[in-house]
């Protein structure tokens, strides 16, 4: 069972309290009704599913109930960092050489 740092509870908590909520930083258009078929397809159906670093949403559903964002490595299954919902994608990851 993983330990996940909740940016609202400001501590690591057991994975059982959390739920994954898919890829992060996918913006819902303010004018979604007017989106083209292609744009809507990209928004709703297409996901990066990378091998390596992924930006994803989690919810501390059985804790503070907040959604937040996490950077996780899909190869090692290690969390690189977590940050609050609405905060921008981190420009630089801790420990990253690039």
């Amino acid at each position, binding site marked *: 069972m993983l330990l996940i740092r909740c940016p609202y509870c400001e501590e690591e908590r*057991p994975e*059982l309290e959390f739920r994954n909520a898919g890829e992060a930083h996918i913006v819902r258009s303010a004018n979604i009704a007017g989106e083209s078929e292609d744009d809507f397809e990209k928004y709703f159906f297409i996901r990066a599913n990378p091998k390596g670093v992924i930006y994803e949403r989690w919810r501390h559903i059985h804790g503070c109930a907040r959604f937040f964002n996490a950077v996780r490595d899909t190869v090692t299954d290690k969390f690189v960092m977590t940050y609050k919902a609405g905060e921008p994608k981190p420009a630089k990851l801790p420990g990253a050489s690039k």
Partner: protein
Amino acid sequence: MAKAAAKTNAASASVERRPALAGRALSAPGVKVEILPPAERISLRAPEASLAALSKGLGVTLPTKPKSSATKGGRTALWLGPDEWLIIDESGNDPLADCAKVSALHSAVGISHRNVAISVNGPAAAVTVNSGCPQDLSLEAFPVEAASRTILGKSEIVLLRTAADAFRVECWRSFSDYVFTFLSEAASDAAN
């Protein structure tokens, strides 16, 4: 204290209140698990700007530190999230009415009947709760007055440490049978 709460409601009621699992209790070596009497509760949601007014209205300072609580005059405010508090009143007063007098932006919803409270008391209390709760319940990590929504087995609970060896476990009404049974079974093993 809670009897008074039941009484105020019962004063005008022509039907009886039948709390879930009323009176159930289990004693095991080192720990006692028992259903607590009804209490008044609200789920309070509010932005930071409203906290001072609400604290004043409720008579208890709403804590802003994660995993913490504050108690005053039989009323406890548990921090559940950055804009969420569980208010439990055991003195028979109505926190919903108190919030209604506060004009600052907030949401107060009555949930007195939604939750059932169970006390877990005794030197083996932490081990009992840890039978199904994955959090670190040492006094360093989860001190007296610490409060958190978390998991017990397959149920969500709100956990409040009321003393070094005492916890208040709150769960939804229909989960109370499961939670009480779980804690009872765990209690029987906890002293080992």
